[in-house]
């Protein structure tokens, strides 16, 4: 056994959309331990979003195996012997229901799972992602793009997931906002002990946020590099300016574009 239990374990995973000769993902083997902040980077069309959809269960494998394990049940999950793996998903767009208020949008995952909603907890969640209680009654159309993204993040946390799956969630927002959202996500990851898998084509983001960065190239090449990062105790502002950041960025660039 490895030192930490794997939440996801992919073995020779293959995904194709109808044509086995043109796979989107080919021979992907990846082990993601609990508590890791893993970022998958790669050029457009390398299958990184598909990989995330596989992990979320939205896309089934055409070949190979995937094991998902939530590990021993936590007290919060009800204390059963085998806990189910709950994953929160944040899409590239906020994907909110425009006819529902912020609070009603947060209730959706509970409604669909036929679970009781505790509005006080949901309001607390709203504050955790940087929105205020006053926003609870607003519709998405009354919120700015950044606030919509925050609401979308809060919704991913409603079912108290062990895993957070992020599909380029900051791609559509401006740089300034992106940095703030990045800090929010990393803070939530640390505070909640989440396992987070982020898909992005922003190398700086990958370098800044992750414990581990995987470089994915279009099939048949697959995973071509796998970096582990030491995270020293720095404030977000210090970390952004730290020399290690730039060194790693160079390494990452070299891995993506070998000379």
């Amino acid at each position, binding site marked *: 056994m490895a030192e930490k239990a794997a939440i996801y374990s992919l073995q020779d995973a293959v995904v194709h959309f109808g044509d086995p000769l043109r796979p989107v993902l080919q021979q992907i083997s990846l082990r993601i331990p609990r508590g890791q902040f893993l970022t998958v980077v790669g050029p457009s069309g390398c299958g990184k979003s598909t990989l995330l959809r596989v992990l979320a269960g939205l896309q089934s494998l055409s070949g190979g195996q995937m094991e998902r394990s939530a590990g021993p049940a936590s007290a919060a999950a009800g204390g059963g012997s085998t806990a189910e793996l709950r994953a929160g*998903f944040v899409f590239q*767009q*906020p*994907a909110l229901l*425009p006819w*529902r208020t912020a609070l009603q949008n947060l209730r959706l995952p509970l409604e669909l799972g036929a679970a009781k909603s505790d509005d006080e907890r949901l309001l607390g969640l709203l504050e955790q992602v940087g929105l205020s209680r006053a926003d609870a009654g607003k519709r*998405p159309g009354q919120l*700015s793009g950044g606030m*919509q993204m925050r609401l979308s993040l809060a919704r991913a946390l409603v079912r108290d997931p062990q895993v957070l799956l992020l599909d380029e969630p900051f791609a559509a927002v401006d740089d300034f906002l992106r940095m703030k959202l990045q800090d929010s996500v990393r803070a939530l990851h640390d505070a909640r002990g989440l396992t987070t898998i982020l898909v992005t084509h922003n190398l700086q983001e990958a370098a800044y946020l992750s414990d581990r960065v995987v470089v994915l190239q279009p099939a048949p090449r697959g995973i071509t590099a796998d970096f582990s990062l030491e995270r020293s105790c720095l404030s977000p502002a210090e970390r952004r300016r730290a020399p290690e950041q730039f060194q790693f960025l160079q390494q990452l660039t070299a891995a993506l574009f070998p000379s």
Partner: protein
Amino acid sequence: MSERSGQFSAVGKTSVVRSVSDVLVPLLVLALVLLVWQGAVWWWRISPVLLPGPGAVLTACWKIRASLLESAFRTALAALTGLSISIVLGTLTAFAFSQSALVRRAFYPYAVLLQTVPIIAIAPIVIVSLGRGFVSVATVSAILSLFPIITSTTTGLLQVDATLLDLFRLYGASRWKTLLSLRVPAALPYLISGIRIASGSSIVGAIVGEFFVGDGTPGLGSLIQRKSASLVLSELYATVGVATVLGTLVFGLITVVGERVLRRRFGMSLGGRISGPQSGG
């Protein structure tokens, strides 16, 4: 730069300016047409037997106002009955269409048939099975207004954002729950714009219905028939004018009420867009 950008007042202002010009500009066109019309009648001294001027038409309008009002009311009643029937039938059909591609493929051609079969061809069938009168007129109105509601609502139910469908799948939502909590509310703007288009067809349907399957009781259709037979052109024009105004009124009413309900209750607008500022991207 703040995350809470104050774009709302700007949006509100432009929409007010737009709705004022939405009404004013067409009215201006109308005034211009009437002016040219009246001028032409004066200038070339056109006989009122050939073309009455707008003044004469307005006078005629006032002269037969009682009969016009009663007819418009009866026709509107038949049209609204027909429209209500087609809203119910059209929505149910759209539900069925949205749930199965097979059902859609099998029955869509027949829905198109509703739109393309000339009403004169169905008139005898309607008369044989329902007789002449209000019920038949409303039925013709329903047949003519059904198609836009079916197509528009089906499109709305099917054209749901793929990401939102993923979201519902992610949380294990049943087909039923997805229909109720996602597809139906997302289709509302489509349903309302379908009703809007259908409202015009329902009034045309009621008038044409009065031509072919009516029993001669007052109605704009039967009034047009009588006035064209009597050769009092100004009164015929007046009746046609009232029919047009009735159609425009119903169309406008549905637009205003629909837009308001969508905006206030659902945070959407008739274009299917989300109201207010959008996220970039």
